[in-house]
């Protein structure tokens, strides 16, 4: 009977019950609490700025929107000061740097530090298992930074609400390149992408500082490539021959065409403009604001895709 009541042998036991996942929570927190605190401090400081300035922005917008008559110089000044309040964020480009910093300083060291200091030989030979350890750490940290970014997005959308409500009276439109990548889920998504880039760079480069540098470079490259080359393919651009496209439009390209639909080169346009001596400035460079009108009168159409 003793044989039957003996406890399971360790090897059988091991295959039945792996170390519970939840135990990695403490491990991850203990090892990355400074990085996570850094994220909290960075986003917290920005949140305080956004909150304080945001209150003024909301007030200024309320005042500007109530201004009568709408076209007067006073109202114009009110709108321009309202618009200028956003200056400290450099048109949103400061916020664009936040995901990069999170990716570089939270994502890159996760694996690179283990590799650089040799502690992976400790971490990956514990009973928890190498792949489970890596997966648990990356998922937990990714969830933490994504949640922080998500909360920050809520504040950001509150902050920009007056600007978007103002329509095309300020440059801070929803499609403005500095802001487009920060709205809605995009900010959290960029944060996750940067974190993933950082973790990948860390495992490939195996050293913390070069991995951080590589993360910043890769993120910047990806962000610019997305803005310059990818974004215009998100939706089929609209096309208009109206010389005044909507103020909120994000203009992709503009082109002059003849009535027959042939594109016109810049040199042809210059020749046409040369024929209008009263408009030509020094060196044949047209200075007048009526160039558009003049060319339209000569049978050319400006097509704008946006």
């Amino acid at each position, binding site marked *: 009977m003793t044989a039957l009541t003996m406890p399971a042998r360790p090897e059988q036991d091991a295959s039945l019950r792996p170390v519970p996942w939840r135990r990695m929570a403490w491990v991850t927190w203990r*090892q990355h609490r400074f990085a996570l605190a850094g994220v909290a401090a960075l986003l917290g400081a920005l949140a305080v700025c956004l909150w304080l300035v945001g209150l003024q922005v909301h007030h200024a917008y309320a005042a500007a929107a109530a201004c009568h008559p709408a076209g007067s110089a006073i109202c114009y000044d009110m709108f321009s000061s309202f618009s200028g309040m956003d200056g400290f964020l450099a048109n949103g480009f400061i916020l664009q740097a936040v995901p990069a910093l999170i990716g570089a300083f939270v994502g890159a060291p996760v694996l690179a530090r283990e590799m650089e200091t040799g502690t992976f030989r400790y971490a990956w030979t*514990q009973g928890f298992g190498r792949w489970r350890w890596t997966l648990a750490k990356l998922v937990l940290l990714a969830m933490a930074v994504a949640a922080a970014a998500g909360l920050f997005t809520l504040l950001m959308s509150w902050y920009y609400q007056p600007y978007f409500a103002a329509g095309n009276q300020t440059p801070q439109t929803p499609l403005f390149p500095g802001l487009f990548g920060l709205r809605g889920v995009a900010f959290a998504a960029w944060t996750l992408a940067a974190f993933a880039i950082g973790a990948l760079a860390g495992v490939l480069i195996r050293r913390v500082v070069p991995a951080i540098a590589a993360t910043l470079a890769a993120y910047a490259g990806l962000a610019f490539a997305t803005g310059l080359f990818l974004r215009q393919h998100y939706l089929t651009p609209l096309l208009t021959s109206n010389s005044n496209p909507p103020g909120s439009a994000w203009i992709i390209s503009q082109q002059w065409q003849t009535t027959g639909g042939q594109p016109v080169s810049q040199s042809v346009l210059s020749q046409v403009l040369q024929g209008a001596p009263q408009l030509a400035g020094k060196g044949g460079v047209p200075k007048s604001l009526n160039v558009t009108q003049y060319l339209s009168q000569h049978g050319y159409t400006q097509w704008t895709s946006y």
Partner: protein
Amino acid sequence: MNIIETSGLSKRYGSTWALRECSLAVPAGHVAALVGPNGAGKTTLLKLAVGLAAPTAGTVTVLGGRTPGSPAALDGIAFVAQDAPLYKNLPAVDMLHLTRNLNRRFDQRYAETRLAEFGIPLSRRAGKLSGGQQAQLALTLALARRPRLLLLDEPVAMLDPVARHDFMATVLTAAAEDGVSVLLSSHVLAELERVADYLILLSRGRVQVAGEIDDLLASHRVLTGPAAEAGRYAERSVVHVRRGEAQAHLLVRAAADDPVPPDWEAHRVGLEELALAYLREPGAAALPGPARARALPLETGEPSEVTR
């Protein structure tokens, strides 16, 4: 049960073979010493056994047929890598907590008792401990997991003699009292006779000697006799010849009751002497199965001439 078993195990880094055609079977219950010059493949073999590297060719299993690196294998194996890697910024108490969280078993009381014995303050950061204390902490973390196999990579290379002695005493206690099998790599030969009872000698990525130390010592003899007659024993399995002015010392594979020729004396061989002789003769081998030591050529020229 074999605590580690390899068959044709090979590992290549780039164009260099770190380990070639390595076939081993170490039974459980030994303190096995993995000996060899730098670059012989000791660390590579340990990394393969613990799943930190994958073989280029061949197979390796641990703890009686388990795949290295699998949860079932990692559960029963504790590995202390070279230079005892620890998170330098974590206090000892957090290293204990960390290891407890990462394993199914962790004997907290054992760990705390051992650290107290060695005067390691729980609140001190691992990076602030002395080299000997760091090694003891790493070993404590490994043993508190109650492993069945303890793998140690050059555990005492960086330690002073006292720390070295303490470290080995801990290992031997675990082996004797808890039945932990141990495989430790070292190039410090002097330690081994006291510590190990199984020897694996690696040279240039190949296994040269493998067996229980008692068996190895019993099956080797040092014959001392006139240098001029050294060539007469070609029929014997001579591993290594050391010549003096008048006398030659031959390490031969021979049982204790083998007849000794007239004018020659037979001595027991020490482990260090045996290991050194094989390390100097990369062509010789003493492996389980048919003896592979080569015969001494009839005409030996220079004193340093070796058997091929």
